[in-house]
Protein backbone atom coordinates (compact mmCIF):
# COMPACT_ATOMS: atom_id res chain seq x y z
CA UNK A 1 0.00 0.00 0.00
CA UNK A 2 2.81 2.42 0.95
CA UNK A 3 4.59 1.38 -2.24
CA UNK A 4 1.47 2.10 -4.34
CA UNK A 5 1.21 5.59 -2.89
CA UNK A 6 4.88 6.17 -3.65
CA UNK A 7 4.43 5.00 -7.23
CA UNK A 8 1.37 7.19 -7.81
CA UNK A 9 2.81 10.23 -6.02
CA UNK A 10 4.81 11.88 -8.81
CA UNK A 11 1.95 11.72 -11.34
CA UNK A 12 -0.50 13.09 -8.81
CA UNK A 13 1.87 15.92 -7.92
CA UNK A 14 2.21 16.96 -11.57
CA UNK A 15 -1.57 16.73 -11.95
CA UNK A 16 -2.09 18.92 -8.89
CA UNK A 17 0.47 21.52 -10.03
CA UNK A 18 -0.56 21.76 -13.66
CA UNK A 19 -4.25 20.87 -13.58
CA UNK A 20 -6.24 20.94 -10.34
CA UNK A 21 -4.68 24.01 -8.74
CA UNK A 22 -4.56 26.14 -11.94
CA UNK A 23 -8.13 25.31 -12.97
CA UNK A 24 -9.53 26.04 -9.49
CA UNK A 25 -7.50 29.24 -9.40
CA UNK A 26 -8.92 30.19 -12.80
CA UNK A 27 -12.49 29.62 -11.63
CA UNK A 28 -11.93 31.75 -8.55
CA UNK A 29 -10.36 34.52 -10.64
CA UNK A 30 -13.71 35.04 -12.37
CA UNK A 31 -14.90 36.39 -8.99
CA UNK A 32 -12.36 39.20 -9.14
CA UNK A 33 -12.61 42.40 -11.09
CA UNK A 34 -10.20 43.67 -13.72
CA UNK A 35 -8.50 47.02 -13.26
CA UNK A 36 -7.41 49.14 -16.18
CA UNK A 37 -3.97 48.16 -17.46
CA UNK A 38 -4.20 44.47 -16.69
CA UNK A 39 -4.38 44.66 -12.89
CA UNK A 40 -6.70 42.58 -10.76
CA UNK A 41 -8.84 44.04 -8.01
CA UNK A 42 -9.59 42.44 -4.64
CA UNK A 43 -12.27 39.79 -4.45
CA UNK A 44 -14.55 38.05 -4.12
CA UNK A 45 -17.00 40.10 -6.15
CA UNK A 46 -19.75 39.31 -8.62
CA UNK A 47 -18.96 42.39 -10.69
CA UNK A 48 -17.30 40.53 -13.58
CA UNK A 49 -20.13 38.02 -13.82
CA UNK A 50 -22.75 40.78 -13.61
CA UNK A 51 -21.06 42.72 -16.44
CA UNK A 52 -20.70 39.58 -18.52
CA UNK A 53 -24.25 38.36 -18.14
CA UNK A 54 -25.72 41.83 -18.74
CA UNK A 55 -23.75 42.35 -21.95
CA UNK A 56 -25.70 41.08 -25.02
CA UNK A 57 -22.37 40.71 -26.86
CA UNK A 58 -21.36 37.75 -24.69
CA UNK A 59 -24.80 36.16 -24.83
CA UNK A 60 -24.60 36.30 -28.61
CA UNK A 61 -21.06 34.92 -28.46
CA UNK A 62 -22.29 31.84 -26.58
CA UNK A 63 -25.31 31.25 -28.82
CA UNK A 64 -23.30 31.74 -32.03
CA UNK A 65 -20.55 29.40 -30.75
CA UNK A 66 -23.14 26.75 -29.94
CA UNK A 67 -24.82 27.31 -33.33
CA UNK A 68 -21.54 26.95 -35.25
CA UNK A 69 -20.64 23.86 -33.21
CA UNK A 70 -24.03 22.26 -33.95
CA UNK A 71 -23.64 22.99 -37.66
CA UNK A 72 -20.10 21.59 -37.79
CA UNK A 73 -21.22 18.51 -35.82
CA UNK A 74 -23.97 17.72 -38.33
CA UNK A 75 -21.56 18.27 -41.23
CA UNK A 76 -18.94 16.00 -39.65
CA UNK A 77 -21.52 13.26 -39.08
CA UNK A 78 -22.82 13.46 -42.66
CA UNK A 79 -19.28 13.36 -44.07
CA UNK A 80 -17.99 10.72 -41.65
CA UNK A 81 -20.84 8.19 -41.63
CA UNK A 82 -20.54 6.92 -45.23
CA UNK A 83 -16.75 6.62 -44.89
CA UNK A 84 -16.98 4.77 -41.56
CA UNK A 85 -19.59 2.38 -42.97
CA UNK A 86 -17.42 1.79 -46.04
CA UNK A 87 -14.38 1.02 -43.87
CA UNK A 88 -16.43 -1.24 -41.60
CA UNK A 89 -17.60 -3.29 -44.58
CA UNK A 90 -14.23 -3.46 -46.35
CA UNK A 91 -12.32 -6.73 -46.34
CA UNK A 92 -9.93 -7.19 -43.43
CA UNK A 93 -6.88 -6.42 -45.54
CA UNK A 94 -8.26 -3.14 -46.87
CA UNK A 95 -9.81 -2.12 -43.57
CA UNK A 96 -6.47 -1.65 -41.84
CA UNK A 97 -5.05 0.44 -44.65
CA UNK A 98 -8.18 2.59 -44.93
CA UNK A 99 -8.23 3.15 -41.18
CA UNK A 100 -4.62 4.28 -41.12
CA UNK A 101 -5.41 6.67 -44.00
CA UNK A 102 -8.43 8.03 -42.13
CA UNK A 103 -6.83 8.37 -38.73
CA UNK A 104 -3.38 9.65 -39.72
CA UNK A 105 -4.62 13.23 -40.28
CA UNK A 106 -5.48 13.21 -36.58
CA UNK A 107 -1.75 13.13 -35.87
CA UNK A 108 -0.93 16.10 -38.11
CA UNK A 109 -0.80 19.46 -36.37
CA UNK A 110 -3.95 21.62 -36.52
CA UNK A 111 -1.77 24.48 -37.82
CA UNK A 112 -0.67 22.38 -40.79
CA UNK A 113 -4.19 21.21 -41.59
CA UNK A 114 -5.61 24.72 -41.30
CA UNK A 115 -2.82 26.01 -43.53
CA UNK A 116 -3.70 23.25 -46.03
CA UNK A 117 -7.23 24.66 -46.16
CA UNK A 118 -5.82 28.14 -46.81
CA UNK A 119 -4.02 26.66 -49.83
CA UNK A 120 -7.29 25.12 -51.03
CA UNK A 121 -9.80 27.84 -50.18
CA UNK A 122 -7.66 30.98 -50.48
CA UNK A 123 -8.39 33.73 -53.00
CA UNK A 124 -5.83 32.21 -55.38
CA UNK A 125 -6.42 28.69 -54.12
CA UNK A 126 -7.45 25.49 -55.81
CA UNK A 127 -11.21 25.89 -55.47
CA UNK A 128 -11.10 29.48 -56.74
CA UNK A 129 -8.93 28.39 -59.68
CA UNK A 130 -11.38 25.60 -60.52
CA UNK A 131 -14.36 27.95 -60.34
CA UNK A 132 -12.59 30.48 -62.57
CA UNK A 133 -11.79 27.73 -65.04
CA UNK A 134 -15.48 26.82 -65.05
CA UNK A 135 -16.23 30.39 -66.08
CA UNK A 136 -17.09 32.10 -62.81
CA UNK A 137 -15.68 35.61 -63.04
CA UNK A 138 -15.57 36.28 -59.31
CA UNK A 139 -15.55 33.16 -57.10
CA UNK A 140 -17.07 33.64 -53.65
CA UNK A 141 -14.70 34.39 -50.77
CA UNK A 142 -14.03 31.27 -48.71
CA UNK A 143 -11.36 32.41 -46.28
CA UNK A 144 -11.63 34.96 -43.48
CA UNK A 145 -15.28 34.05 -43.01
CA UNK A 146 -17.42 31.35 -41.42
CA UNK A 147 -17.68 29.25 -44.61
CA UNK A 148 -13.99 28.40 -44.63
CA UNK A 149 -13.82 27.85 -40.87
CA UNK A 150 -16.80 25.44 -40.99
CA UNK A 151 -15.41 23.46 -43.97
CA UNK A 152 -12.00 23.10 -42.33
CA UNK A 153 -13.44 22.13 -38.93
CA UNK A 154 -15.59 19.41 -40.52
CA UNK A 155 -12.49 17.94 -42.13
CA UNK A 156 -10.35 18.30 -39.02
CA UNK A 157 -12.95 16.51 -36.85
CA UNK A 158 -13.73 13.72 -39.33
CA UNK A 159 -11.08 11.27 -38.02
CA UNK A 160 -12.43 11.59 -34.46
CA UNK A 161 -15.98 11.04 -35.70
CA UNK A 162 -14.93 8.03 -37.80
CA UNK A 163 -13.15 6.44 -34.80
CA UNK A 164 -16.31 6.79 -32.67
CA UNK A 165 -18.57 5.49 -35.43
CA UNK A 166 -16.35 2.47 -36.08
CA UNK A 167 -16.41 1.62 -32.37
CA UNK A 168 -20.23 1.84 -32.46
CA UNK A 169 -20.49 -0.32 -35.61
CA UNK A 170 -19.32 -3.30 -33.55
CA UNK A 171 -23.00 -3.97 -32.84
CA UNK A 172 -23.99 -4.14 -36.51
CA UNK A 173 -25.06 -7.54 -37.69
CA UNK A 174 -25.10 -8.46 -41.38
CA UNK A 175 -27.76 -11.14 -40.72
CA UNK A 176 -30.21 -8.47 -39.49
CA UNK A 177 -29.68 -6.37 -42.62
CA UNK A 178 -30.15 -9.42 -44.84
CA UNK A 179 -33.31 -10.34 -42.95
CA UNK A 180 -34.73 -6.84 -43.47
CA UNK A 181 -33.77 -6.90 -47.16
CA UNK A 182 -35.22 -10.36 -47.75
CA UNK A 183 -38.48 -9.18 -46.20
CA UNK A 184 -38.62 -6.59 -48.96
CA UNK A 185 -37.08 -3.48 -47.41
CA UNK A 186 -35.30 -1.28 -49.97
CA UNK A 187 -31.64 -0.46 -49.15
CA UNK A 188 -32.34 3.08 -47.89
CA UNK A 189 -34.95 1.69 -45.51
CA UNK A 190 -32.53 -0.96 -44.20
CA UNK A 191 -30.03 1.86 -43.58
CA UNK A 192 -32.58 4.04 -41.83
CA UNK A 193 -34.42 1.40 -39.77
CA UNK A 194 -31.71 -1.19 -39.03
CA UNK A 195 -28.18 0.16 -39.48
CA UNK A 196 -28.68 3.68 -38.11
CA UNK A 197 -30.53 2.71 -34.88
CA UNK A 198 -27.95 0.02 -34.10
CA UNK A 199 -25.08 2.46 -34.57
CA UNK A 200 -26.66 5.24 -32.49
CA UNK A 201 -24.26 4.97 -29.49
CA UNK A 202 -21.29 5.58 -31.80
CA UNK A 203 -23.14 8.41 -33.55
CA UNK A 204 -23.91 10.10 -30.24
CA UNK A 205 -20.35 9.82 -28.92
CA UNK A 206 -18.96 11.14 -32.20
CA UNK A 207 -21.38 14.06 -32.13
CA UNK A 208 -20.54 14.88 -28.51
CA UNK A 209 -16.81 14.97 -29.28
CA UNK A 210 -17.26 16.96 -32.50
CA UNK A 211 -19.45 19.46 -30.64
CA UNK A 212 -17.14 20.07 -27.69
CA UNK A 213 -14.03 20.13 -29.89
CA UNK A 214 -15.65 22.79 -32.09
CA UNK A 215 -16.68 24.90 -29.09
CA UNK A 216 -13.08 24.81 -27.86
CA UNK A 217 -11.46 25.08 -31.30
CA UNK A 218 -9.09 27.96 -31.53
CA UNK A 219 -6.40 27.59 -34.20
CA UNK A 220 -8.78 27.13 -37.14
CA UNK A 221 -11.20 30.00 -36.40
CA UNK A 222 -8.26 32.25 -35.56
CA UNK A 223 -6.27 31.59 -38.76
CA UNK A 224 -9.01 30.85 -41.30
CA UNK A 225 -11.40 33.34 -39.71
CA UNK A 226 -8.84 36.12 -39.94
CA UNK A 227 -10.29 37.90 -36.91
CA UNK A 228 -13.81 37.97 -38.38
CA UNK A 229 -15.01 34.68 -36.89
CA UNK A 230 -15.29 35.13 -33.13
CA UNK A 231 -16.07 32.06 -31.05
CA UNK A 232 -15.76 31.40 -27.32
CA UNK A 233 -12.17 30.16 -27.57
CA UNK A 234 -10.92 33.02 -29.75
CA UNK A 235 -12.58 35.54 -27.42
CA UNK A 236 -10.89 33.91 -24.39
CA UNK A 237 -7.54 34.30 -26.18
CA UNK A 238 -8.18 37.93 -27.09
CA UNK A 239 -9.30 38.82 -23.56
CA UNK A 240 -6.32 37.03 -21.99
CA UNK A 241 -3.53 38.02 -24.38
CA UNK A 242 -4.65 41.20 -26.14
CA UNK A 243 -6.97 43.00 -23.73
CA UNK A 244 -5.27 41.51 -20.64
CA UNK A 245 -8.62 41.20 -18.88
CA UNK A 246 -8.05 37.96 -16.99
CA UNK A 247 -11.23 37.97 -14.90
CA UNK A 248 -13.40 38.19 -18.04
CA UNK A 249 -11.27 35.52 -19.75
CA UNK A 250 -11.69 33.35 -16.64
CA UNK A 251 -15.45 33.87 -16.58
CA UNK A 252 -15.66 32.99 -20.30
CA UNK A 253 -13.67 29.83 -19.55
CA UNK A 254 -16.19 28.86 -16.87
CA UNK A 255 -18.97 29.58 -19.39
CA UNK A 256 -17.38 27.28 -21.95
CA UNK A 257 -17.05 24.59 -19.27
CA UNK A 258 -20.77 25.05 -18.61
CA UNK A 259 -21.48 24.53 -22.32
CA UNK A 260 -19.38 21.34 -22.11
CA UNK A 261 -21.35 20.18 -19.07
CA UNK A 262 -24.66 20.86 -20.79
CA UNK A 263 -23.55 18.91 -23.87
CA UNK A 264 -22.49 16.01 -21.65
CA UNK A 265 -25.84 15.98 -19.83
CA UNK A 266 -27.75 16.08 -23.12
CA UNK A 267 -25.59 13.23 -24.41
CA UNK A 268 -26.40 11.13 -21.32
CA UNK A 269 -30.12 11.84 -21.70
CA UNK A 270 -30.29 10.90 -25.37
CA UNK A 271 -28.10 7.85 -24.84
CA UNK A 272 -30.52 6.54 -22.20
CA UNK A 273 -33.50 7.08 -24.52
CA UNK A 274 -31.71 5.32 -27.38
CA UNK A 275 -30.59 2.40 -25.24
CA UNK A 276 -34.07 1.92 -23.78
Amino acid sequence: MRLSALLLGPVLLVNLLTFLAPVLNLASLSFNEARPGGGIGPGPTLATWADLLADPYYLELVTSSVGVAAMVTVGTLLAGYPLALFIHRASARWRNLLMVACISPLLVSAVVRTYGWMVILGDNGIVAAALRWLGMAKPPRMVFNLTGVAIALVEILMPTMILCLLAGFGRLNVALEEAAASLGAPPWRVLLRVVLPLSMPGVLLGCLLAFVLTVSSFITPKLLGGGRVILLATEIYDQAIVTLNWPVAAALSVLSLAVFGAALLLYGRILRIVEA
Partner: protein
Amino acid sequence: MKRALHGVVIAALFLFLLAPVLLVLPMSFSADRYLVWPPSGFSLRWYVALAQDAGLMAAARNSFVLALLVCAATVVLAMPAALVLARQRFRGREALLAVLTAPLLLPTIVLALALLIIFVGYGLIGSWPGLLLAHLLVALPYGIRVLMTSVSTLPAGVEEAASSLGAAPWSVFQRVTLPLMLPGVAATGAIVFLVSFDEVVISLFVVGPQLTTLPVAMFRYVESRTDPLVAAVSALLVLLTLAIVLILERAVGLTRALGR
Protein backbone atom coordinates in the same frame (compact mmCIF):
# COMPACT_ATOMS: atom_id res chain seq x y z
CA MET B 1 -25.12 2.91 -61.74
CA LYS B 2 -25.96 3.14 -58.08
CA ARG B 3 -22.74 1.36 -57.16
CA ALA B 4 -20.77 3.82 -59.28
CA LEU B 5 -22.42 6.76 -57.56
CA HIS B 6 -21.64 5.23 -54.16
CA GLY B 7 -18.01 4.79 -55.23
CA VAL B 8 -17.77 8.42 -56.35
CA VAL B 9 -19.18 9.67 -53.02
CA ILE B 10 -16.73 7.56 -51.01
CA ALA B 11 -13.77 8.66 -53.15
CA ALA B 12 -14.82 12.31 -52.83
CA LEU B 13 -15.05 12.04 -49.04
CA PHE B 14 -11.61 10.42 -48.83
CA LEU B 15 -10.23 13.18 -51.03
CA PHE B 16 -11.85 15.80 -48.81
CA LEU B 17 -10.32 14.22 -45.72
CA LEU B 18 -6.80 13.92 -47.10
CA ALA B 19 -6.64 16.97 -49.41
CA PRO B 20 -5.26 19.57 -46.97
CA VAL B 21 -2.50 17.24 -45.79
CA LEU B 22 -1.55 16.07 -49.28
CA LEU B 23 -1.72 19.43 -51.08
CA VAL B 24 0.93 21.08 -48.94
CA LEU B 25 3.44 18.78 -50.66
CA PRO B 26 3.16 20.22 -54.21
CA MET B 27 2.64 23.72 -52.79
CA SER B 28 5.94 23.50 -50.91
CA PHE B 29 7.78 23.25 -54.24
CA SER B 30 6.11 26.39 -55.60
CA ALA B 31 8.32 28.94 -57.31
CA ASP B 32 5.87 31.80 -56.64
CA ARG B 33 6.10 34.49 -54.00
CA TYR B 34 2.51 33.98 -52.82
CA LEU B 35 0.07 31.14 -52.38
CA VAL B 36 -1.15 30.68 -55.96
CA TRP B 37 -2.66 27.57 -57.48
CA PRO B 38 -1.47 26.20 -59.79
CA PRO B 39 2.13 27.27 -59.08
CA SER B 40 3.70 28.95 -62.12
CA GLY B 41 6.75 26.72 -61.68
CA PHE B 42 8.44 24.40 -59.26
CA SER B 43 11.59 25.05 -57.24
CA LEU B 44 13.27 24.44 -53.92
CA ARG B 45 13.34 28.16 -53.03
CA TRP B 46 11.04 27.78 -50.02
CA TYR B 47 13.11 24.97 -48.56
CA VAL B 48 16.16 27.20 -48.96
CA ALA B 49 14.24 30.08 -47.34
CA LEU B 50 13.27 27.77 -44.48
CA ALA B 51 16.88 26.71 -43.87
CA GLN B 52 17.82 30.41 -43.72
CA ASP B 53 14.97 31.40 -41.40
CA ALA B 54 16.77 31.50 -38.05
CA GLY B 55 13.57 31.93 -36.04
CA LEU B 56 11.78 28.89 -37.46
CA MET B 57 14.91 26.75 -37.28
CA ALA B 58 15.49 27.63 -33.63
CA ALA B 59 11.83 26.92 -32.88
CA ALA B 60 12.12 23.54 -34.62
CA ARG B 61 15.16 22.67 -32.51
CA ASN B 62 13.31 23.69 -29.34
CA SER B 63 10.28 21.59 -30.28
CA PHE B 64 12.44 18.58 -31.00
CA VAL B 65 14.36 18.78 -27.70
CA LEU B 66 11.17 19.48 -25.78
CA ALA B 67 9.34 16.52 -27.32
CA LEU B 68 12.21 14.19 -26.36
CA LEU B 69 12.21 15.54 -22.79
CA VAL B 70 8.44 15.14 -22.58
CA CYS B 71 8.70 11.55 -23.87
CA ALA B 72 11.30 10.60 -21.28
CA ALA B 73 9.51 12.33 -18.40
CA THR B 74 6.16 10.82 -19.38
CA VAL B 75 7.48 7.25 -19.44
CA VAL B 76 9.33 7.68 -16.14
CA LEU B 77 6.31 9.27 -14.40
CA ALA B 78 3.50 7.25 -15.98
CA MET B 79 5.05 3.78 -15.84
CA PRO B 80 4.84 3.32 -12.04
CA ALA B 81 1.36 4.85 -11.97
CA ALA B 82 0.18 2.60 -14.83
CA LEU B 83 1.49 -0.51 -13.02
CA VAL B 84 -0.48 0.38 -9.89
CA LEU B 85 -3.64 1.51 -11.69
CA ALA B 86 -3.80 -1.49 -13.99
CA ARG B 87 -3.21 -4.08 -11.26
CA GLN B 88 -4.43 -2.91 -7.88
CA ARG B 89 -8.08 -2.56 -7.02
CA PHE B 90 -8.56 0.01 -4.27
CA ARG B 91 -11.15 2.50 -3.15
CA GLY B 92 -11.07 5.72 -5.16
CA ARG B 93 -9.27 4.11 -8.11
CA GLU B 94 -11.95 5.19 -10.57
CA ALA B 95 -11.93 8.75 -9.23
CA LEU B 96 -8.14 8.84 -9.46
CA LEU B 97 -8.22 7.68 -13.07
CA ALA B 98 -10.86 10.31 -13.86
CA VAL B 99 -8.73 13.11 -12.37
CA LEU B 100 -5.62 11.90 -14.18
CA THR B 101 -7.30 11.77 -17.60
CA ALA B 102 -9.52 14.84 -17.07
CA PRO B 103 -7.05 17.24 -18.76
CA LEU B 104 -7.95 15.63 -22.10
CA LEU B 105 -11.65 16.36 -21.57
CA LEU B 106 -11.42 20.07 -20.81
CA PRO B 107 -11.01 22.64 -23.60
CA THR B 108 -7.28 23.19 -24.17
CA ILE B 109 -7.83 26.94 -24.23
CA VAL B 110 -9.10 26.78 -20.63
CA LEU B 111 -6.09 24.72 -19.53
CA ALA B 112 -3.81 27.15 -21.35
CA LEU B 113 -5.28 30.19 -19.61
CA ALA B 114 -5.19 28.45 -16.22
CA LEU B 115 -1.49 27.64 -16.70
CA LEU B 116 -0.66 31.14 -17.94
CA ILE B 117 -2.09 32.73 -14.81
CA ILE B 118 -0.21 30.38 -12.46
CA PHE B 119 3.04 30.48 -14.47
CA VAL B 120 3.17 34.28 -14.53
CA GLY B 121 3.30 34.28 -10.74
CA TYR B 122 6.25 31.86 -10.65
CA GLY B 123 8.22 33.27 -13.58
CA LEU B 124 7.73 30.09 -15.60
CA ILE B 125 6.56 31.84 -18.79
CA GLY B 126 8.99 31.27 -21.65
CA SER B 127 11.12 28.86 -19.62
CA TRP B 128 12.07 25.22 -20.24
CA PRO B 129 10.61 23.94 -16.93
CA GLY B 130 7.37 25.80 -17.69
CA LEU B 131 7.05 24.34 -21.20
CA LEU B 132 7.92 20.85 -19.92
CA LEU B 133 5.27 21.03 -17.19
CA ALA B 134 2.69 22.42 -19.62
CA HIS B 135 3.30 19.61 -22.10
CA LEU B 136 3.27 16.97 -19.38
CA LEU B 137 -0.25 18.12 -18.56
CA VAL B 138 -1.52 16.81 -21.91
CA ALA B 139 1.07 14.05 -22.41
CA LEU B 140 0.59 12.19 -19.11
CA PRO B 141 -3.04 11.16 -19.72
CA TYR B 142 -2.01 9.56 -23.03
CA GLY B 143 1.02 7.92 -21.40
CA ILE B 144 -1.01 6.51 -18.51
CA ARG B 145 -3.69 5.16 -20.82
CA VAL B 146 -1.40 3.50 -23.35
CA LEU B 147 0.88 2.03 -20.65
CA MET B 148 -2.13 0.71 -18.67
CA THR B 149 -3.34 -1.12 -21.79
CA SER B 150 0.17 -2.46 -22.20
CA VAL B 151 0.31 -3.70 -18.58
CA SER B 152 -3.07 -5.41 -18.81
CA THR B 153 -2.04 -7.37 -21.90
CA LEU B 154 1.13 -8.80 -20.30
CA PRO B 155 1.16 -12.61 -20.25
CA ALA B 156 -0.14 -13.84 -16.89
CA GLY B 157 2.11 -15.59 -14.42
CA VAL B 158 5.53 -14.74 -15.86
CA GLU B 159 6.27 -12.20 -13.16
CA GLU B 160 5.02 -14.50 -10.39
CA ALA B 161 7.26 -17.21 -11.78
CA ALA B 162 10.25 -14.87 -11.63
CA SER B 163 9.58 -13.78 -8.06
CA SER B 164 8.84 -17.31 -6.86
CA LEU B 165 12.26 -18.24 -8.21
CA GLY B 166 13.68 -15.64 -5.86
CA ALA B 167 13.98 -12.46 -7.95
CA ALA B 168 13.60 -9.20 -6.01
CA PRO B 169 10.72 -6.89 -7.11
CA TRP B 170 13.04 -4.40 -8.82
CA SER B 171 14.81 -7.09 -10.76
CA VAL B 172 11.47 -8.67 -11.75
CA PHE B 173 10.49 -5.28 -13.18
CA GLN B 174 13.83 -4.76 -14.88
CA ARG B 175 14.34 -8.26 -16.27
CA VAL B 176 10.76 -9.40 -16.97
CA THR B 177 8.13 -6.64 -16.93
CA LEU B 178 10.03 -3.92 -18.76
CA PRO B 179 11.26 -6.06 -21.68
CA LEU B 180 7.72 -7.41 -22.18
CA MET B 181 6.34 -3.87 -22.17
CA LEU B 182 8.79 -2.48 -24.74
CA PRO B 183 6.17 -2.28 -27.54
CA GLY B 184 3.90 -0.34 -25.18
CA VAL B 185 6.75 1.97 -24.23
CA ALA B 186 7.54 2.53 -27.92
CA ALA B 187 3.88 3.33 -28.62
CA THR B 188 3.79 5.74 -25.68
CA GLY B 189 6.96 7.42 -26.90
CA ALA B 190 5.62 7.82 -30.45
CA ILE B 191 2.23 9.18 -29.39
CA VAL B 192 3.65 11.51 -26.75
CA PHE B 193 6.30 12.78 -29.16
CA LEU B 194 3.60 13.78 -31.62
CA VAL B 195 1.34 15.23 -28.91
CA SER B 196 4.19 17.42 -27.68
CA PHE B 197 5.62 18.27 -31.11
CA ASP B 198 2.19 19.33 -32.42
CA GLU B 199 0.89 21.03 -29.27
CA VAL B 200 0.06 24.62 -30.07
CA VAL B 201 -2.75 26.14 -27.98
CA ILE B 202 -1.16 25.66 -24.56
CA SER B 203 2.30 26.48 -25.91
CA LEU B 204 0.96 29.72 -27.37
CA PHE B 205 0.11 30.88 -23.84
CA VAL B 206 3.31 29.82 -22.07
CA VAL B 207 6.08 30.54 -24.60
CA GLY B 208 8.11 33.72 -24.33
CA PRO B 209 10.10 35.91 -26.70
CA GLN B 210 13.30 33.96 -25.97
CA LEU B 211 11.85 30.46 -26.18
CA THR B 212 9.20 29.39 -28.66
CA THR B 213 8.11 26.14 -30.29
CA LEU B 214 7.69 25.28 -33.96
CA PRO B 215 3.85 25.16 -34.06
CA VAL B 216 3.71 28.54 -32.29
CA ALA B 217 6.23 30.04 -34.70
CA MET B 218 4.20 28.65 -37.62
CA PHE B 219 0.98 30.01 -36.14
CA ARG B 220 2.50 33.48 -35.78
CA TYR B 221 3.89 33.30 -39.32
CA VAL B 222 0.57 32.28 -40.89
CA GLU B 223 -1.23 34.92 -38.85
CA SER B 224 0.82 37.69 -40.43
CA ARG B 225 1.39 36.44 -44.00
CA THR B 226 0.62 33.55 -46.30
CA ASP B 227 3.41 32.36 -48.57
CA PRO B 228 4.60 28.85 -49.40
CA LEU B 229 7.28 28.88 -46.64
CA VAL B 230 4.90 27.25 -44.16
CA ALA B 231 4.03 24.69 -46.85
CA ALA B 232 7.67 23.58 -46.79
CA VAL B 233 7.58 23.19 -42.97
CA SER B 234 4.22 21.44 -43.24
CA ALA B 235 5.48 19.00 -45.85
CA LEU B 236 8.39 18.06 -43.59
CA LEU B 237 6.02 17.66 -40.62
CA VAL B 238 3.69 15.43 -42.64
CA LEU B 239 6.65 13.20 -43.53
CA LEU B 240 7.75 13.11 -39.87
CA THR B 241 4.22 12.13 -38.83
CA LEU B 242 4.16 9.43 -41.47
CA ALA B 243 7.41 8.00 -40.13
CA ILE B 244 6.04 7.93 -36.59
CA VAL B 245 2.76 6.38 -37.76
CA LEU B 246 4.80 3.59 -39.35
CA ILE B 247 6.73 3.06 -36.09
CA LEU B 248 3.43 2.88 -34.18
CA GLU B 249 1.91 0.52 -36.72
CA ARG B 250 4.96 -1.73 -36.39
CA ALA B 251 5.02 -1.57 -32.57
CA VAL B 252 1.38 -2.17 -31.66
CA GLY B 253 -0.86 -1.26 -34.57
CA LEU B 254 -2.08 2.30 -34.95
CA THR B 255 -5.73 1.49 -34.49
CA ARG B 256 -5.04 -0.28 -31.20
CA ALA B 257 -2.78 2.50 -29.95
CA LEU B 258 -5.40 5.18 -30.60
CA GLY B 259 -8.53 3.14 -29.95
CA ARG B 260 -9.95 4.44 -26.77
